[in-house]
């Protein structure tokens, strides 16, 4: 006892060195076992003895460890040592996994963290252990003739990574740089690469991570031109990948690294494919694009720009390096798809995915984004419409995604339009292939190959037109697509359309001949007549509608609520539209009031509506004439968005039918007689006024395109784009890329709205533009909000009142869906086209049936509103609004 105490006082270091069981512990254990009368002396002796025995057993257990050829002592070993000392082994601790000791909080007690085993699941055989795999041997060459295989220098970093931490002898070599991540990199580089290259690597990495922008520029310039850095590529790529992940909190750092990627990609001397460099690069860039970066937590960090840049860069890499063999395109698209389909991811990821898809082209967009839109939309809208304060950040993000989606849809539409144009090109002998080629020559970037393909493409469509049946599919798909999209995006999409059309119009010359044709048709006295007839028909239709509406109202009281919502939306919309829309607002409100009144008194309302409809029809007709006049100013580009308008109208309004008829005739002509258009050209100038007619043409044309043609048609549009160089995002490879590099944001903005600026001067739209300027300003400053506000009501409308639409259609004895509606139309067109050489005949037959494609009505509305604003005519706008309202109301 005394000895023991002495020992304590005299030999504290020793006690620390060897674990000792104190007498307190012994007493505690004894009490637990029910022995309370243990003397101090006994406890001390016991404690000493126990600790001695423990040490002895531990010593023995190490023997077992050694013979099991392990470095780690296990409980099994200790049990064997106990067994050797004739002590009962301790069961329950021979855990297959390593035992982890966890401290409690605060950390004064440590315990074994063992998972609980559910006996019931064991008993019920629910627990099925994994098959550990058959024990087997596998051979490989460790060294051949003394040349070590596993550490051969030819294999860059991958094997080392596989080895996990570097081997001891590698640890001796310390990198020059301070950060551990690339200190390790530097190490391995050192072993395999010559001194100057090593220095180069150090400099480049330092520059990239440094703050000297001048040096960075120089470094990047050199990186993109230096031919001698080939051996460094794998290391640079690894550096990029690690750095991107390591600095996800720092947008500027990541941007710098992306610049490095850009430089590497644009270096013509490097071949990135081998050693999985390429896939690593793509992974790194996709990381920037799709990951919820740490930087995006802070809204002040402009990670959107980073994502835009990454998307652009990714598209560039894929364009250059993707091949069917390396699956890179496939994998990338898949990863984007996964992100987009995962609604749990934050919006910034979705934004990245959308931007990535957008940059990859229309095919991927259609395949992934558009197909997923129906599922995604509610998710997005939920975020946008949640006005709670806590949701502010998310809402802003959602707006970003919305903007990106709108942009992609716009892009898709543009693509469609381009295709249409191509068709026009075919039809027009005036636009020979040579023309395009000339353009190519002018722009240096275009290769000869492209022009060849253009030729090929042009030829094919010609054939297609010969077999006219195929042509009609595309306009249909285009129309339905537009309609579908309109349901989501509403007016904000329509807002884009004129702009789009402008862009396309840059090649306006192409369309001139078409117009001529249409004009010819319009100029025909018969067309006018048919319009009158149609108008009468329309009146009848209105009556039928009203009847139907009444029935509906009776049936569905629910619609009222929807109407309220609509009203609210529209109010909002109007507020945002400012004064432009004020007139429209008033009317709308009046109409609504009228509706309410109608609900109370159905009869009254009927009369009211009838009156109004009549009015509208009259005004329309008058406006038609006016607008036609305006259209003259507007030029060729108008046609694109107008066709939709007309279809809508044609549904509702009789007066527009003649124009539709013109369109159809147009298509027929294009199919059968291209020559005739030339002769008609002279008329065009005079009669062009109904610009609508021109629009219709365009619509019908796409229908003639085969889906197959799509791809090919892209290329001519490319050329056109180059020709005009108005459209930055049409072509991935050219001008817009340049823009994007410097300021992706601008790029986006440019896409979304400001086309006008560029083209306005060249086209009469300048007019509009000047008048619309408040709109545009708005859109620039906060495009998303603008869009949103505009769109939402429409969206709602379209979503909530499908019945009215269908019912309306039914009443017209035409199929519900647009496609259905169109098909017969097309077929009839074909027939009629075949049967009759003259458009006149055709018009008559087709007019009533052509009415159905309503899908564009809302566009029409908005676009007209704009155009009318542009032309300074307020009245037509109001009229249209009325029309629209009446239509909406009528189904109700």
């Amino acid at each position: 006892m005394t000895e023991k105490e002495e020992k304590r006082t005299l030999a504290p270091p020793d006690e620390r060195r060897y674990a000792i069981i104190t007498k307190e512990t012994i007493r505690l254990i004894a009490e637990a076992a029910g022995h309370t009368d243990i003397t101090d002396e006994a406890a001390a002796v016991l404690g000493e003895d126990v600790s001695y025995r423990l040490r002895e057993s531990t010593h023995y257990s190490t023997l077992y460890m050694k013979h099991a050829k392990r470095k780690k002592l296990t409980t099994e070993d200790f049990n064997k040592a106990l067994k050797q000392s004739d002590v009962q082994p301790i069961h329950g601790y021979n855990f297959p996994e390593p035992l982890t000791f966890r401290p409690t909080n605060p950390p004064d007690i440590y315990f074994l963290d063992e998972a609980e085993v559910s006996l019931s699941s064991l008993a019920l055989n629910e627990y099925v252990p994994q098959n550990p795999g058959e024990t087997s041997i596998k051979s490989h060459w460790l060294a051949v003739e003394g040349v070590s295989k596993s550490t051969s220098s030819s294999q860059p970093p991958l094997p080392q990574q596989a080895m996990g931490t570097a081997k001891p002898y590698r640890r001796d070599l310390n990198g020059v740089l301070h950060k551990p991540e690339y200190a390790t990199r530097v190490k391995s580089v050192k072993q395999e690469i010559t001194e100057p290259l090593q220095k180069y690597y150090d400099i480049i990495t330092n520059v990239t991570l440094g703050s000297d922008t001048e040096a960075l520029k120089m470094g990047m310039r050199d990186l993109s031109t230096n031919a001698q850095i080939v051996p460094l590529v794998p290391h640079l790529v690894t550096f990029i990948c690690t750095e991107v992940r390591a600095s996800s909190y720092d947008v500027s750092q990541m941007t710098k690294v992306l610049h490095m990627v850009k430089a590497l990609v644009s270096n013509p001397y490097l071949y990135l494919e081998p050693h999985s460099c390429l896939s690593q690069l793509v992974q790194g860039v996709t990381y920037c694009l799709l990951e919820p970066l740490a930087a995006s937590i802070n809204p002040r960090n402009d990670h959107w720009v980073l994502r835009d840049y990454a998307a652009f860069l990714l598209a560039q890499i894929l364009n250059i390096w993707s091949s069917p063999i390396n699956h890179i395109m496939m994998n990338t698209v898949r990863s984007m798809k996964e992100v987009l389909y995962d609604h749990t991811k934050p919006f910034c990821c979705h934004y990245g995915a959308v931007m990535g898809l957008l940059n990859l082209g229309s095919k991927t967009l259609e395949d992934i984004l558009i197909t997923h839109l129906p599922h995604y939309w509610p998710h997005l809208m939920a975020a946008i419409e949640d006005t709670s304060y806590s949701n502010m950040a998310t809402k802003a993000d959602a707006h970003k995604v919305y903007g990106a989606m709108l942009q992609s849809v716009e892009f898709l539409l543009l693509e469609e339009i381009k295709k249409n144009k191509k068709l026009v090109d075919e039809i027009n002998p005036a636009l020979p292939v040579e023309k395009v080629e000339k353009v190519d020559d002018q722009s240096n970037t275009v290769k000869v190959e492209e022009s060849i393909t253009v030729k090929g493409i042009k030829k094919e469509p010609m054939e297609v037109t010969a077999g006219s049946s195929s042509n009609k599919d595309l306009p249909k798909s285009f129309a339905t697509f537009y309609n579908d999209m309109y349901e989501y995006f509403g007016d904000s999409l329509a807002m884009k359309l004129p702009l789009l059309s402008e862009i396309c119009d840059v090649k306006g010359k192409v369309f001139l001949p078409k117009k001529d044709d249409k004009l010819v048709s319009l100029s025909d006295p018969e067309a006018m007549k048919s319009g009158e007839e149609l108008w009468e028909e329309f009146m009848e239709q209105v009556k039928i509608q009203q009847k139907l509406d009444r029935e509906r109202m009776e049936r569905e009281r629910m619609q009222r609520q929807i109407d309220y919502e609509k009203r609210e939306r529209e109010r909002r919309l109007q507020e945002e539209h400012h004064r432009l829309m004020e007139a429209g607002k008033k009317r709308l409100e009046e109409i609504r009031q009228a509706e309410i009144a109608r609900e109370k008194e159905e009869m009254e309302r009927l009369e009211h509506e009838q009156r109004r409809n009549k009015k509208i029809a009259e005004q329309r007709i008058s406006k038609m004439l006016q607008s036609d006049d305006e259209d003259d100013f507007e030029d060729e580009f108008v046609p694109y968005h107008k066709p939709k308008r007309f279809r809508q109208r044609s549904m509702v309004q009789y007066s527009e039918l003649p124009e539709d008829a013109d369109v159809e005739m147009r298509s027929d002509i294009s199919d059968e007689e291209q020559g005739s258009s030339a002769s008609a050209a002279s008329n065009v100038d005079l009669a062009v006024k109904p610009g609508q007619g021109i629009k219709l043409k365009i619509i019908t044309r796409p229908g003639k395109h085969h889906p197959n043609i799509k791809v090919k048609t892209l290329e001519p549009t490319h050329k056109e784009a180059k020709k005009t160089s108005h459209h930055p995002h049409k072509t991935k490879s050219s001008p817009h890329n340049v823009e994007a590099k410097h300021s992706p944001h601008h790029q986006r903005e440019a896409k979304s709205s400001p086309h006008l600026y560029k083209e306005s001067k060249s086209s009469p739209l300048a007019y509009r533009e000047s008048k619309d300027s408040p709109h545009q300003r708005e859109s620039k400053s906060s495009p998303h909000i603008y869009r949103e506000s505009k769109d939402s009501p429409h969206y709602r409308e379209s979503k909530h009142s499908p019945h009215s639409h269908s019912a309306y259609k039914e009443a017209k004895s035409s199929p519900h869906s647009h496609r259905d509606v169109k098909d017969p139309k097309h077929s009839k067109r074909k027939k009629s086209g075949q049967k009759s050489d003259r458009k006149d005949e055709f018009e008559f037959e087709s007019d009533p049936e052509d009415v159905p494609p309503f899908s564009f009505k809302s566009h029409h509305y908005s676009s007209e509103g704009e155009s009318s604003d542009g032309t300074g005519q307020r009245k037509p706008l109001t009229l249209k609004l009325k029309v629209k309202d009446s239509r909406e109301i009528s189904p109700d």
Partner: protein
Amino acid sequence: MAGQTPGMFGSSRNVAVNSTLQNEAKSDFSDKQTLLAVLQFLKKNNLKGTEDLLKREAGIKDDDVIPQTAPPSETDVSHALAAYKSADDPSLYMDHYTDLKNFIESCLDVHKVELSMVLYPVFVHMYLELVYNEHERHAIIFFQKFSIEQEDYYQDDLNQLSTVTKKEHMKGNQLMENFKGSRFVIKMSRDSYNHLKRHLQEKKMKPLLNIIQEHLFIDVFDGVPRSKQQIQATSGAVLGENERDANKAKVFYGLLKEPEINMPVEEEEESVEVTDKSKKKKVKKDPLLTKKAKNDPHAPQLNRIPLPEMKDNDKLEKITAYREALRRVKVGRDHPPTICFYTMLNSYKGVTSLDIAEDSSLMAAGFADSTIRVFSMTPQPLRCMKIASSLEGIDKEADDVLERMMDDRTASDSKLLLGHSGPVYAARFSRDRKYLISSSEDGTVRLWSLFTWTNLVCYKGHNHPVWDVEFSPYGHYFVSVGQDRVARLWSTDHHQPLRMFAGHLSDVDCVKFHPNSNYVVTGSSDRTIRLWDILNGNCVRLLTGHKGSVQVLAFTPDGRFLASAGVDCMVLLWDIASGTLLAQMKGHTETVYSLCFGRDGAALASGGLDCSVKLWDIARVIQEIDTEADISIPSSVNVNDNPKLLLESYSTKATPVLALHFTRRNLLIASGPAQIPESTKT
């Protein structure tokens, strides 16, 4: 000494002492011991006259006998411990030790190194005396003060020792018993010895004097004192160095004369096989044959120990082996090896042993879950023999009878052998690949048939884990070693061991047959290696120099040299002929578990837990042997520790190297279990 021996063995477990061993090995010294023992016996029985007579005749003085007066017949621990009984003032010990230290410090540098060797045993015994006499406090202080000064490689022992603070703890402590039961051997030049002696006599420090007299054996040699490096090379064993006398016995390290193999068979085959080159090969072959035909003076007689007769099959085997050998590539300094690595996958249960058959066709792996797996390393699958009834139908005269008796339906790439009830620490093939012998933690050795893939015999002799087992190169015999500190020689047809080789002071960790099958070598946790003669069971070599337990041993193909390695991460090369340490090869960072000499003996491969295979230049060591050196004078022997001996190091990703094997053509096969991070090990 002789009197203490029984005590030592008495305390070790279940060991019958092979008494012949001690006597023969220690010629004149043990003679004296015997005489002393007889004297003591006479004295005890009061046969005064005879005693005096014997004393006079043998020239033994009274004081020689006195130290031995501790009752020799008593094997009881407490009596053996009684040697520590001392009435001295405990505080004196510290002073004396300090004094001794100061004295050694004050010596000339040449002597200082040698004399400082005394410090460790003196320290240990002083401590134990203090503990025994229940001066616990002083003991602990003493220990703390001086334990740090001791050599690194003793720290393990000191750790163990430090736990002993009570008299009761001394009982049953293995290390304690070793210390009290044997003398600590120190080699010292005469000059140094005289220095020490004079000092001790002058100072008259009784406890110190007692300890040195009773517990130290100072082996004095004439010659210059050894350098520090020389001393370091051979020290490290639990009980100091080997005595010079221990390695005096002659060892027949030569290979056995190859029995006459009817060459016609070979030539026939060869001529059929290679028509053009046959002449060349014959030319090559002839000198070899004649050389082997000659009588090697170092080779034992063919019938020195009875060996099984060669069967036709064995002869065929020899011939193919020989033919393979002709195509052998060189491996050495200028001829780097080709290494094929066999990774054991999904070895969740922990691989405890790996062995590759001599002809590189089979691999056996023992697992911690007491299973053994045999893998085929050739495209040839492993098959069972047909059942007895269908065997009867086979034409026994047919040439391909061996082929016919196998059942193709049972073919598989690996076979599982179940029978042990503890981790299998060794599983080795017989040279003819008919049998597999395995040893386990359950204390049994099992013989398995590779025809029927069943257990044939279970040899129960060790009651403690059997760490290693090995088949004789000529079959029939096998030797097993284990925790009971004894190596046992068995023949497959006896259920009891033929010989027991006792002498190690701690677990015997590994064992290896000499290529001529006349000797076995064992490595132990007492950090010594012993070579035993199978004929008489004597320990003919005691090799000290390892600083940690010895885990693996390997003979050169010519049987002259022995390589050993273990926990101390060093690979040592020994000359069996003289028992001297030739080279110290340092480079490993973890325990070495596998060694293999190239077939031409020029290179040695080693591998271990540090996941690397290292290749050592043995040819260079042999080249640089100083033939002038007088082995009897330890200071003239130098150890080659040239770092250039390491030829190359090949790293695996994360696989420890547990087996190394040179094929007959000198392709190096390495093997180990893939380490799947942490979780897989049991």
